[in-house]
């Protein structure tokens, strides 16, 4: 069965959607990604949708699901490269893409993930420090 490839890059997973997906492909992607996050302990998921010419409520829901599911497994999701026409349409349709971050392109998406994860890790270290001094 056809599947969308998921690339592993250190602590992150990268998915580039290159074609307009039919539903089964999108549902598979959701399942595969969640599996991968679990297997690799990835801290971030980056989904590049710059080649998508439309995002309807179905695709929007899949993206949202990926975000929420990853979050529960302690990974942040960034959707990058949304086309202007797609963004305008999504707003009119009434879809907000809650649960995912957005960035202009893969590079900026990576930066965003790094700063978020670093910030989280620092908090943990600080907490540990405090615990140690007591």
């Amino acid at each position, binding site marked *: 069965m056809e599947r969308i490839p998921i690339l592993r890059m250190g602590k992150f997973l990268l998915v580039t959607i290159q074609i307009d997906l*039919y*539903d089964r492909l999108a549902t598979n992607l959701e399942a595969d990604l969640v599996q991968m996050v679990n297997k690799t302990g990835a801290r971030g998921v980056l989904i590049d949708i710059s080649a998508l010419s*439309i995002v309807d409520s*179905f695709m929007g*829901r899949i993206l949202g699901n990926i975000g929420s599911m990853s979050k529960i497994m302690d990974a942040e999701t960034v959707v990058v490269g949304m086309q202007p026409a797609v963004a305008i349409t999504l707003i*009119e349709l009434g879809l907000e893409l809650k649960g995912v971050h957005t960035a202009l392109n893969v590079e900026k998406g990576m930066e965003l993930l790094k700063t978020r994860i670093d910030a989280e890790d620092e908090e943990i270290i600080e907490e540990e420090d405090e615990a140690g001094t007591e």
Partner: protein
Amino acid sequence: MKLVLNKDVMSIEKEQDVVPFRNRVKEYAVKIGMSLVNQTKLITAASELVRNMLKYGGGGVTIIEVISQGRDNGIRLVFQDKGPGIKDISLAMKDGYSSGKSLGIGLPGAKRLVNEFDIKSTLGEGTTVSIIKWKNG
């Protein structure tokens, strides 16, 4: 008065039919010179309606028409199914209402994305939704 300049019929039976249908709609929209944003709105609305047709109506037939009115050109899409029909249309048109545990934005969202929206449904007989997007609308 609306003149039909071109007409195409496609039947939708399985989810693999959705992407080819969207592509066909796009071809026509490009042919009449519709702007990219309007194309995207039209195709997104079409995607919502064709999905409803599959999910709730058990598939059906779509009609793609190039129409003209005065000096404006546009695309009319009709989605016809012989499914169970909709009991309460005004409820189905509400943002957030879904009988299928979904977001419930397909129908109201599609309406916001196009210039004209018409829905008719008879219980036990089926549902017909017709939308128009004008080239410059």
